[in-house]
Protein backbone atom coordinates (compact mmCIF):
# COMPACT_ATOMS: atom_id res chain seq x y z
CA UNK A 1 0.00 0.00 0.00
CA UNK A 2 2.73 2.43 0.89
CA UNK A 3 5.49 2.75 -1.64
CA UNK A 4 8.00 3.32 1.10
CA UNK A 5 10.97 1.81 -0.66
CA UNK A 6 10.48 3.94 -3.75
CA UNK A 7 12.47 7.10 -4.04
CA UNK A 8 10.32 10.17 -3.62
CA UNK A 9 10.66 13.45 -5.34
CA UNK A 10 11.85 15.60 -2.47
CA UNK A 11 15.55 16.25 -2.00
CA UNK A 12 17.04 13.51 0.10
CA UNK A 13 18.70 14.15 3.39
CA UNK A 14 21.20 11.39 3.51
CA UNK A 15 23.10 10.73 0.31
CA UNK A 16 24.38 7.40 1.56
CA UNK A 17 20.97 5.99 2.27
CA UNK A 18 19.74 7.28 -1.05
CA UNK A 19 22.55 5.60 -2.92
CA UNK A 20 21.92 2.36 -1.07
CA UNK A 21 18.29 2.44 -2.05
CA UNK A 22 18.72 3.19 -5.70
CA UNK A 23 21.73 1.00 -6.43
CA UNK A 24 20.50 -2.01 -4.48
CA UNK A 25 23.64 -2.00 -2.32
CA UNK A 26 23.40 -3.42 1.22
CA UNK A 27 20.69 -1.60 3.09
CA UNK A 28 21.61 1.06 5.61
CA UNK A 29 19.43 1.04 8.68
CA UNK A 30 17.93 4.34 9.72
CA UNK A 31 18.60 6.03 13.05
CA UNK A 32 16.23 5.28 15.90
CA UNK A 33 16.25 8.17 18.35
CA UNK A 34 14.26 8.13 21.58
CA UNK A 35 13.05 11.48 22.92
CA UNK A 36 12.83 11.24 26.67
CA UNK A 37 12.97 13.32 29.87
CA UNK A 38 11.75 11.44 32.90
CA UNK A 39 9.45 14.22 33.98
CA UNK A 40 6.16 14.78 32.22
CA UNK A 41 5.08 18.03 30.63
CA UNK A 42 8.50 19.28 29.56
CA UNK A 43 7.73 19.05 25.86
CA UNK A 44 8.81 15.57 24.71
CA UNK A 45 5.85 15.15 22.37
CA UNK A 46 6.11 18.70 21.02
CA UNK A 47 9.80 18.13 20.40
CA UNK A 48 9.17 14.81 18.67
CA UNK A 49 6.51 16.33 16.41
CA UNK A 50 8.61 19.33 15.47
CA UNK A 51 11.83 17.44 14.89
CA UNK A 52 9.86 14.94 12.79
CA UNK A 53 8.51 17.74 10.65
CA UNK A 54 11.87 19.50 10.45
CA UNK A 55 13.69 16.31 9.41
CA UNK A 56 10.97 15.47 6.88
CA UNK A 57 11.25 18.97 5.48
CA UNK A 58 14.91 18.24 4.83
CA UNK A 59 13.80 15.34 2.69
CA UNK A 60 14.48 12.47 5.06
CA UNK A 61 12.01 9.64 5.50
CA UNK A 62 10.78 9.88 9.05
CA UNK A 63 8.62 7.66 11.24
CA UNK A 64 7.28 9.00 14.51
CA UNK A 65 6.42 6.35 17.07
CA UNK A 66 4.21 7.27 19.99
CA UNK A 67 5.40 4.97 22.76
CA UNK A 68 3.14 6.55 25.35
CA UNK A 69 0.70 3.65 25.43
CA UNK A 70 -2.48 4.60 27.25
CA UNK A 71 -1.91 8.33 26.87
CA UNK A 72 -1.72 8.88 23.13
CA UNK A 73 -0.92 12.48 22.23
CA UNK A 74 1.47 12.68 19.32
CA UNK A 75 -1.43 12.25 16.86
CA UNK A 76 -3.06 15.37 18.33
CA UNK A 77 0.05 17.51 17.96
CA UNK A 78 0.50 16.31 14.39
CA UNK A 79 -3.18 16.99 13.64
CA UNK A 80 -3.60 13.36 12.60
CA UNK A 81 -5.98 12.18 15.32
CA UNK A 82 -8.85 11.62 12.86
CA UNK A 83 -6.72 9.45 10.60
CA UNK A 84 -5.49 6.97 13.17
CA UNK A 85 -7.06 3.54 12.54
CA UNK A 86 -4.54 1.22 14.13
CA UNK A 87 -1.91 1.55 16.77
CA UNK A 88 1.40 0.16 17.86
CA UNK A 89 -0.12 -2.71 19.85
CA UNK A 90 -2.14 -3.83 16.83
CA UNK A 91 1.16 -4.19 15.00
CA UNK A 92 2.95 -5.87 17.89
CA UNK A 93 0.11 -8.35 18.25
CA UNK A 94 0.16 -8.88 14.49
CA UNK A 95 -3.43 -7.82 14.02
CA UNK A 96 -2.38 -5.53 11.18
CA UNK A 97 0.69 -5.07 9.04
CA UNK A 98 3.06 -2.26 9.93
CA UNK A 99 2.29 -0.43 6.68
CA UNK A 100 -1.41 -0.40 7.51
CA UNK A 101 -0.84 1.16 10.90
CA UNK A 102 1.44 3.94 9.68
CA UNK A 103 -0.46 7.20 9.20
CA UNK A 104 0.88 9.47 6.50
CA UNK A 105 1.31 13.11 7.44
CA UNK A 106 -0.92 15.79 5.90
CA UNK A 107 1.97 17.91 4.71
CA UNK A 108 4.85 15.57 3.98
CA UNK A 109 4.57 12.33 2.00
CA UNK A 110 7.80 11.16 3.66
CA UNK A 111 6.56 11.57 7.25
CA UNK A 112 4.56 8.90 9.05
CA UNK A 113 3.08 8.35 12.48
CA UNK A 114 2.64 5.12 14.38
CA UNK A 115 0.14 5.98 17.07
CA UNK A 116 0.07 4.60 20.59
CA UNK A 117 -2.81 2.48 21.83
CA UNK A 118 -5.15 4.63 23.84
CA UNK A 119 -7.27 2.01 25.56
CA UNK A 120 -4.41 -0.21 26.64
CA UNK A 121 -1.70 -0.14 29.26
CA UNK A 122 2.04 0.22 29.03
CA UNK A 123 2.68 -3.19 30.60
CA UNK A 124 0.94 -4.88 27.69
CA UNK A 125 3.79 -4.01 25.36
CA UNK A 126 6.31 -6.79 24.94
CA UNK A 127 9.81 -5.34 25.08
CA UNK A 128 11.36 -7.77 22.62
CA UNK A 129 8.58 -7.25 20.06
CA UNK A 130 9.05 -3.51 20.43
CA UNK A 131 12.75 -3.87 19.66
CA UNK A 132 11.90 -5.85 16.52
CA UNK A 133 9.31 -3.29 15.46
CA UNK A 134 11.78 -0.41 15.71
CA UNK A 135 14.30 -2.39 13.71
CA UNK A 136 11.68 -3.05 11.04
CA UNK A 137 11.00 0.68 10.89
CA UNK A 138 14.72 1.42 10.61
CA UNK A 139 14.79 -0.67 7.46
CA UNK A 140 12.25 1.64 5.86
CA UNK A 141 13.04 5.04 7.31
CA UNK A 142 16.03 7.31 7.69
CA UNK A 143 14.85 8.41 11.12
CA UNK A 144 12.64 6.70 13.65
CA UNK A 145 11.77 9.17 16.41
CA UNK A 146 10.31 7.51 19.49
CA UNK A 147 8.23 9.65 21.81
CA UNK A 148 8.90 8.22 25.26
CA UNK A 149 6.30 8.39 28.04
CA UNK A 150 7.07 10.15 31.30
CA UNK A 151 8.40 7.99 34.07
CA UNK A 152 11.07 5.33 34.22
CA UNK A 153 8.98 2.17 34.30
CA UNK A 154 8.00 -0.27 31.56
CA UNK A 155 6.91 2.46 29.17
CA UNK A 156 10.37 4.00 29.34
CA UNK A 157 12.09 0.64 28.84
CA UNK A 158 9.92 -0.18 25.84
CA UNK A 159 10.55 3.22 24.28
CA UNK A 160 14.29 2.94 24.73
CA UNK A 161 14.83 -0.69 23.77
CA UNK A 162 15.07 -0.22 20.01
CA UNK A 163 16.87 3.13 20.01
CA UNK A 164 20.56 3.74 19.47
CA UNK A 165 20.44 7.44 20.21
CA UNK A 166 18.67 9.53 22.80
CA UNK A 167 17.61 13.13 23.04
CA UNK A 168 16.69 14.34 26.50
CA UNK A 169 14.35 17.29 26.86
CA UNK A 170 14.75 19.42 29.95
CA UNK A 171 13.15 22.62 31.17
CA UNK A 172 14.99 25.07 33.46
CA UNK A 173 13.34 23.72 36.59
CA UNK A 174 14.83 21.89 39.53
CA UNK A 175 12.51 18.90 39.15
CA UNK A 176 13.06 18.55 35.39
CA UNK A 177 16.85 18.71 35.70
CA UNK A 178 16.80 16.17 38.49
CA UNK A 179 14.69 13.77 36.43
CA UNK A 180 16.88 14.18 33.36
CA UNK A 181 19.90 13.41 35.52
CA UNK A 182 18.18 10.21 36.64
CA UNK A 183 17.15 9.23 33.12
CA UNK A 184 20.65 9.81 31.79
CA UNK A 185 21.89 7.46 34.51
CA UNK A 186 19.33 4.85 33.45
CA UNK A 187 20.21 5.17 29.78
CA UNK A 188 23.70 4.12 30.80
CA UNK A 189 26.79 3.96 28.69
CA UNK A 190 25.07 2.65 25.58
CA UNK A 191 23.86 6.16 24.82
CA UNK A 192 25.43 9.56 24.67
CA UNK A 193 22.23 11.53 25.19
CA UNK A 194 22.02 14.96 23.63
CA UNK A 195 20.19 17.76 25.36
CA UNK A 196 17.44 20.11 24.29
CA UNK A 197 16.58 22.77 26.85
CA UNK A 198 12.97 23.71 26.35
CA UNK A 199 10.72 26.49 27.63
CA UNK A 200 13.46 28.96 28.44
CA UNK A 201 12.26 32.46 29.27
CA UNK A 202 15.21 34.71 28.55
CA UNK A 203 13.59 37.61 30.36
CA UNK A 204 13.36 35.63 33.61
CA UNK A 205 16.87 34.25 33.18
CA UNK A 206 18.12 37.80 32.75
CA UNK A 207 16.46 38.80 36.00
CA UNK A 208 17.98 35.81 37.78
CA UNK A 209 14.57 34.26 38.30
CA UNK A 210 15.13 31.18 36.17
CA UNK A 211 17.93 28.67 35.82
CA UNK A 212 20.01 29.62 32.82
CA UNK A 213 21.13 27.30 30.05
CA UNK A 214 24.60 27.36 31.61
CA UNK A 215 23.19 26.53 35.06
CA UNK A 216 21.32 23.53 33.67
CA UNK A 217 24.19 22.21 31.65
CA UNK A 218 26.82 22.84 34.30
CA UNK A 219 24.95 20.11 36.16
CA UNK A 220 23.93 17.79 33.34
CA UNK A 221 27.07 18.21 31.21
CA UNK A 222 25.51 16.85 28.05
CA UNK A 223 26.15 17.80 24.43
CA UNK A 224 23.66 20.59 23.76
CA UNK A 225 21.54 20.25 20.63
CA UNK A 226 19.76 23.52 21.17
CA UNK A 227 17.59 25.77 23.27
CA UNK A 228 13.91 26.51 22.65
CA UNK A 229 12.22 29.55 24.12
CA UNK A 230 8.88 29.44 25.89
CA UNK A 231 6.72 31.19 23.32
CA UNK A 232 2.96 31.49 23.00
CA UNK A 233 3.08 30.16 19.43
CA UNK A 234 3.87 26.71 20.84
CA UNK A 235 0.44 26.67 22.48
CA UNK A 236 -1.23 27.99 19.36
CA UNK A 237 0.35 25.24 17.29
CA UNK A 238 -0.86 22.62 19.76
CA UNK A 239 -4.36 24.04 19.56
CA UNK A 240 -4.35 23.73 15.79
CA UNK A 241 -2.47 20.48 15.50
CA UNK A 242 0.10 22.11 13.27
CA UNK A 243 3.68 21.72 14.45
CA UNK A 244 5.63 24.96 14.52
CA UNK A 245 8.32 23.52 12.32
CA UNK A 246 5.90 23.59 9.36
CA UNK A 247 6.87 27.24 9.20
CA UNK A 248 10.29 28.68 8.83
CA UNK A 249 9.74 32.30 9.78
CA UNK A 250 9.44 32.27 13.58
CA UNK A 251 12.39 32.04 15.96
CA UNK A 252 11.07 28.82 17.49
CA UNK A 253 10.53 27.21 14.09
CA UNK A 254 14.03 28.20 13.04
CA UNK A 255 15.42 26.69 16.22
CA UNK A 256 13.77 23.34 15.44
CA UNK A 257 15.14 23.41 11.90
CA UNK A 258 18.63 24.15 13.19
CA UNK A 259 18.37 21.29 15.69
CA UNK A 260 17.24 18.98 12.88
CA UNK A 261 20.25 20.08 10.83
CA UNK A 262 22.51 19.28 13.77
CA UNK A 263 20.91 15.85 14.16
CA UNK A 264 21.53 15.26 10.45
CA UNK A 265 25.18 16.00 11.09
CA UNK A 266 25.47 19.57 9.82
CA UNK A 267 28.08 21.62 11.59
CA UNK A 268 25.89 24.53 12.65
CA UNK A 269 25.87 26.20 16.07
CA UNK A 270 23.21 25.18 18.60
CA UNK A 271 20.26 27.56 18.55
CA UNK A 272 20.13 29.67 21.69
CA UNK A 273 17.63 32.15 23.02
CA UNK A 274 18.73 35.66 23.70
CA UNK A 275 17.39 38.26 25.99
CA UNK A 276 16.23 41.35 24.20
CA UNK A 277 15.50 44.39 26.27
CA UNK A 278 11.97 45.54 25.61
CA UNK A 279 10.75 49.11 25.77
CA UNK A 280 9.03 48.38 29.09
CA UNK A 281 12.33 47.07 30.53
CA UNK A 282 14.12 50.21 29.43
CA UNK A 283 11.44 52.39 30.91
CA UNK A 284 11.57 50.37 34.12
CA UNK A 285 15.32 50.69 34.43
CA UNK A 286 15.11 54.42 33.80
CA UNK A 287 12.44 54.99 36.41
CA UNK A 288 13.16 52.47 39.12
CA UNK A 289 16.81 51.73 38.60
CA UNK A 290 15.90 48.08 38.51
CA UNK A 291 17.84 45.76 36.36
Amino acid at each position, binding site marked *: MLPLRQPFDVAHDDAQTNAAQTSGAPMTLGRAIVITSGKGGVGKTTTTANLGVALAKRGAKVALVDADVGLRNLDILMGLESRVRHHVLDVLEEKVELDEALVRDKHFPNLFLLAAAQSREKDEVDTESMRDLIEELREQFDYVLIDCPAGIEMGFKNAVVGAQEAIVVCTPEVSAVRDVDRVV*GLLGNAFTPKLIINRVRPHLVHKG*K*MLSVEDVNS*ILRLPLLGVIADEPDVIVSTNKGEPLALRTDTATAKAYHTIAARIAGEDVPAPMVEYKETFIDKLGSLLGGRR
Partner: protein
Amino acid sequence: MTFNDVFNNLSRLFGREKSGETAKERLRLVLMSDHLSLAPDMVEAMKRDLVEVVSRYVEVDRDKIDVRFEHQDSVFAMLANVPIISVNRTPSPPVGPPRRRRRKKRSMQPAQQNGQMPPSGPGTSGASAAPSFS
Protein backbone atom coordinates in the same frame (compact mmCIF):
# COMPACT_ATOMS: atom_id res chain seq x y z
CA MET B 1 18.16 34.74 60.73
CA THR B 2 21.29 34.41 58.68
CA PHE B 3 22.78 37.06 56.50
CA ASN B 4 21.41 35.21 53.50
CA ASP B 5 17.85 35.36 54.82
CA VAL B 6 18.15 39.06 55.48
CA PHE B 7 19.56 39.61 52.04
CA ASN B 8 16.81 37.54 50.44
CA ASN B 9 14.08 39.37 52.33
CA LEU B 10 15.53 42.72 51.35
CA SER B 11 15.85 41.57 47.76
CA ARG B 12 12.25 40.45 47.75
CA LEU B 13 11.21 43.82 49.11
CA PHE B 14 12.92 45.50 46.20
CA GLY B 15 11.73 42.95 43.66
CA ARG B 16 15.19 41.67 42.92
CA GLU B 17 14.93 38.22 44.35
CA LYS B 18 17.17 35.85 42.44
CA SER B 19 15.26 32.62 42.86
CA GLY B 20 17.31 31.17 40.02
CA GLU B 21 20.22 31.00 42.45
CA THR B 22 18.02 29.22 44.98
CA ALA B 23 16.99 26.75 42.29
CA LYS B 24 20.59 26.10 41.37
CA GLU B 25 21.61 25.51 44.97
CA ARG B 26 18.68 23.20 45.68
CA LEU B 27 19.43 21.26 42.54
CA ARG B 28 23.07 20.85 43.52
CA LEU B 29 22.13 19.48 46.93
CA VAL B 30 19.36 17.18 45.75
CA LEU B 31 21.56 15.67 43.05
CA MET B 32 24.29 14.88 45.56
CA SER B 33 21.71 13.09 47.66
CA ASP B 34 20.27 11.28 44.59
CA HIS B 35 23.65 10.15 43.38
CA LEU B 36 24.54 8.75 46.80
CA SER B 37 21.25 6.93 47.11
CA LEU B 38 21.80 5.44 43.68
CA ALA B 39 25.28 4.24 44.56
CA PRO B 40 24.81 2.02 47.62
CA ASP B 41 28.04 0.15 46.88
CA MET B 42 30.04 3.34 47.04
CA VAL B 43 28.39 4.34 50.31
CA GLU B 44 29.18 0.92 51.79
CA ALA B 45 32.79 1.16 50.68
CA MET B 46 33.03 4.63 52.17
CA LYS B 47 31.64 3.39 55.51
CA ARG B 48 34.12 0.53 55.51
CA ASP B 49 37.05 2.84 54.87
CA LEU B 50 35.81 5.28 57.48
CA VAL B 51 35.63 2.55 60.13
CA GLU B 52 39.05 1.31 59.17
CA VAL B 53 40.60 4.73 59.63
CA VAL B 54 38.90 5.38 62.96
CA SER B 55 39.82 1.90 64.20
CA ARG B 56 43.49 2.71 63.89
CA TYR B 57 43.12 5.03 66.84
CA VAL B 58 40.26 3.69 68.94
CA GLU B 59 38.28 0.51 69.25
CA VAL B 60 34.84 1.00 67.75
CA ASP B 61 31.63 -0.98 67.99
CA ARG B 62 31.32 -2.01 64.37
CA ASP B 63 27.79 -3.33 64.72
CA LYS B 64 26.38 -0.05 65.95
CA ILE B 65 27.96 2.28 63.45
CA ASP B 66 25.42 4.53 61.80
CA VAL B 67 26.31 6.61 58.77
CA ARG B 68 23.70 8.83 57.23
CA PHE B 69 23.49 11.66 54.75
CA GLU B 70 21.37 14.64 55.51
CA HIS B 71 20.34 17.98 54.18
CA GLN B 72 21.10 20.58 56.78
CA ASP B 73 19.97 24.03 55.78
CA SER B 74 22.30 24.83 52.95
CA VAL B 75 24.71 21.94 53.22
CA PHE B 76 24.55 18.28 52.44
CA ALA B 77 26.37 16.43 55.18
CA MET B 78 27.55 13.00 56.09
CA LEU B 79 26.69 12.17 59.68
CA ALA B 80 28.60 9.30 61.22
CA ASN B 81 27.76 7.95 64.63
CA VAL B 82 30.64 5.65 65.60
CA PRO B 83 30.35 4.24 69.13
CA ILE B 84 33.79 3.92 70.73
CA ILE B 85 34.43 0.94 73.00
CA SER B 86 37.85 1.85 74.27
CA VAL B 87 40.70 4.24 73.71
CA ASN B 88 43.26 2.24 75.64
CA ARG B 89 45.16 1.15 72.64
CA THR B 90 48.39 2.72 71.61
CA PRO B 91 47.60 4.78 68.56
CA SER B 92 49.25 3.16 65.59
CA PRO B 93 49.25 5.70 62.84
CA PRO B 94 50.01 3.92 59.58
CA VAL B 95 51.83 6.83 58.01
CA GLY B 96 55.07 8.29 59.35
CA PRO B 97 55.28 10.66 62.34
CA PRO B 98 53.04 13.71 62.15
CA ARG B 99 54.62 16.42 60.11
CA ARG B 100 56.01 19.35 62.05
CA ARG B 101 55.22 22.74 60.80
CA ARG B 102 58.35 24.11 59.33
CA ARG B 103 59.70 27.05 61.14
CA LYS B 104 59.93 30.17 59.08
CA LYS B 105 63.49 30.96 58.19
CA ARG B 106 64.57 34.23 59.55
CA SER B 107 67.44 36.09 58.09
CA MET B 108 70.27 36.08 60.59
CA GLN B 109 71.67 39.41 61.52
CA PRO B 110 75.05 38.53 63.12
CA ALA B 111 76.47 41.98 62.44
CA GLN B 112 74.25 43.55 65.07
CA GLN B 113 76.20 44.39 68.16
CA ASN B 114 73.49 45.65 70.43
CA GLY B 115 72.89 42.22 71.93
CA GLN B 116 69.33 41.90 70.72
CA MET B 117 68.36 38.30 70.23
CA PRO B 118 65.89 37.36 67.60
CA PRO B 119 62.54 36.76 69.35
CA SER B 120 62.40 33.05 68.58
CA GLY B 121 64.00 31.90 71.84
CA PRO B 122 66.72 29.41 72.64
CA GLY B 123 66.29 27.32 69.52
CA THR B 124 67.78 30.09 67.50
CA SER B 125 71.02 30.21 69.42
CA GLY B 126 71.58 26.57 68.47
CA ALA B 127 71.00 27.49 64.89
CA SER B 128 73.40 30.39 65.01
CA ALA B 129 75.96 28.13 66.66
CA ALA B 130 75.78 25.65 63.83
CA PRO B 131 78.33 27.35 61.56
CA SER B 132 80.97 26.95 64.30
CA PHE B 133 81.14 23.20 63.68
CA SER B 134 84.37 22.50 61.90
